[in-house]
């Protein structure tokens, strides 16, 4: 079950959209933590150790999504959190880079809310399976 999700995006509009998607599809009781750039996301991850999933925008001021992925990699706890990269049409190169930096999956704007929901579900299922395999 998705308990806590970190949304990293510099657009307030996108944060509100994710709230709506979550309210529509996710089970009750999922919390969203909001960050507006990569640096803030890293800081917030220190405060919210129980984040299950990160939705990460690529194109942000101060610290972009790719830089965030690079900086989180050496930390085993942070690196174990699943990340869905949200990129924009025509930015395939960024998407490839993000995947090579350890992102779990990606989705391209404009996306269908239901599709995002399916991706979230799939990752969480996979995550649980992995935990079982290790445990």
């Amino acid at each position, binding site marked *: 079950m998705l308990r806590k999700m970190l949304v990293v995006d510099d*657009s*307030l*509009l*996108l944060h*509100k*959209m994710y709230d709506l998607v979550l309210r529509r599809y996710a089970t009750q009781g999922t919390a969203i933590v909001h960050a507006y750039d990569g640096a803030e996301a890293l800081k917030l991850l220190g405060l919210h150790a129980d984040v299950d999933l990160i939705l990460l925008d690529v*194109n*942000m001021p101060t610290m972009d999504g790719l830089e965030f992925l690079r900086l989180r990699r050496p930390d085993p706890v942070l690196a174990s959190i699943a990340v869905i990269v949200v990129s924009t049409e025509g930015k395939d190169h960024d998407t490839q880079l993000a995947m090579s930096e350890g992102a779990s999956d990606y989705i391209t*704007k404009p996306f269908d809310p239901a599709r995002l929901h399916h991706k979230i579900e799939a990752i969480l299922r996979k995550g649980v399976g992995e935990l079982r395999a290790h445990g």
Partner: protein
Amino acid sequence: MGNNPLFGELLDEFVIESSRRLETIEQALLEIGERPSANTAESVADLRRELHTLKGNAGMMGFRGIQSRAHELEECVVDGQPLTAEQTSFLLRGVDDIRASMHGATTADRSGLTVPVAAVDAIVELLADSMILGSRLARQIEMLGDDAEPMALAWEALEKTLTAIHRRTLALRLVPLNPLFASLHRIVHDESLSEGKEIHFIATGGETPLDKSLHHVAAEALGHIVRNAVIHGIEPAEIRLARGKPAAGSIRVSAVSSGAEEICVTIEDDGAGIDRHLLLAAAERKGLAVSDPNDLDSLLYLPGLSTLEETTLSAGRGIGLSASVTAVRRLGGRIEIDNRLGEGAAFRLFLPMQLSMVRVMLVEADGEQYAVPLSAVATVARMAKTELHVINGSGAIGRRRGLLPLLDLGMTFGTSAAIRPQGTVITLAVGGKRRGLLVDRPGAVLDCVVKPLDPICGSTTGILGTTIVSEGRVLLALDPIALLERPLSVRTAA
């Protein structure tokens, strides 16, 4: 609209956020255009990022047109390379296009106000209603006599709180002038480009607040003034140099709160100043009557006199200077000119910081709605058929103090031929005079701005002006003093 019904409710948010992004983009472009030192790889990258986010958000909302226009603009910018003048112009035009598309998509606009104005207005109306209900309650308490003293004190405290909420809610409509200054900057940029003049635009005091509903009027008037300053005020570089001035002209815009209730926006240029003789000659050519050739104000605002019209296309935009000055005056503002021939001109626009609202009660007669200033309403009571006395064609109704003469609103404005046998009596009371206004039914109580009637309509006794209520309906606001003094004629001539 959007292909995701889920996001439909975010339309206002989309417009507000995108408008801010467009403003950021526009400001950056204007800076880059004016100062080569601002044309850095970093600012170009920022610009590209803003366009990219704008594109993505438009896509999410399902605005394909905005998405593809933003895409074109983004593609025109190359990371790490400074912008050329052509690119800057192309991008500025694109900003205009996207703004226009968004304006068509929604009623929200490029202000700093993140709450829809209609929502604030609705709260103001509800507050007005509760204050009316409160005053009714106060009258009841008063009738109870001395025993009700604690109740009266409690009401007094509540009334103070309501008044404070009312004042603070009105203050929510105050919006900083920054976006307006940005649009002036843009005018100066565009006009100076087409005039081939180099002009520096310096703005201060953009944080000064002004009622949202006054921004449009201020923007019209100030737009004319800066356009005039660029086209007529600032001299061509060679003339400036010959006069011992720097080749580049400057236009300074500043705003201050010039009192608790008023703001003052100054537009100052270091150009040639206004030549009264040129204006007089133009008026003469057009055959316009000049009341006082020495009065610069009356000359400048002469309807039909636009020296711009003869020389450039720009003057055709929007309403003329004379009309926008009239609009400013109607709202209780004024414009002062400080003219120094050869040195420049300063225009000072004074506007009330907030629109003064009049609390009115809507009343209906023969299907027409009117607004009555509430300050003149003493009581509202239904009248039964048996209560009406008709004496020589004039109506009256029995009251404790004697007969209250009635004025049938429909007869007053020619929508009915005889006194209605039943309805509601609105007792108007001003300065000891009382009279009943007979209407079909009373309506809501609300705060609104009453604008004086256009002189073109002639003077209509009994009408204070027009007022715009929700849904943009225009109603006539009644003048209680004129209605109290109106002869109670047997039949209206109309």
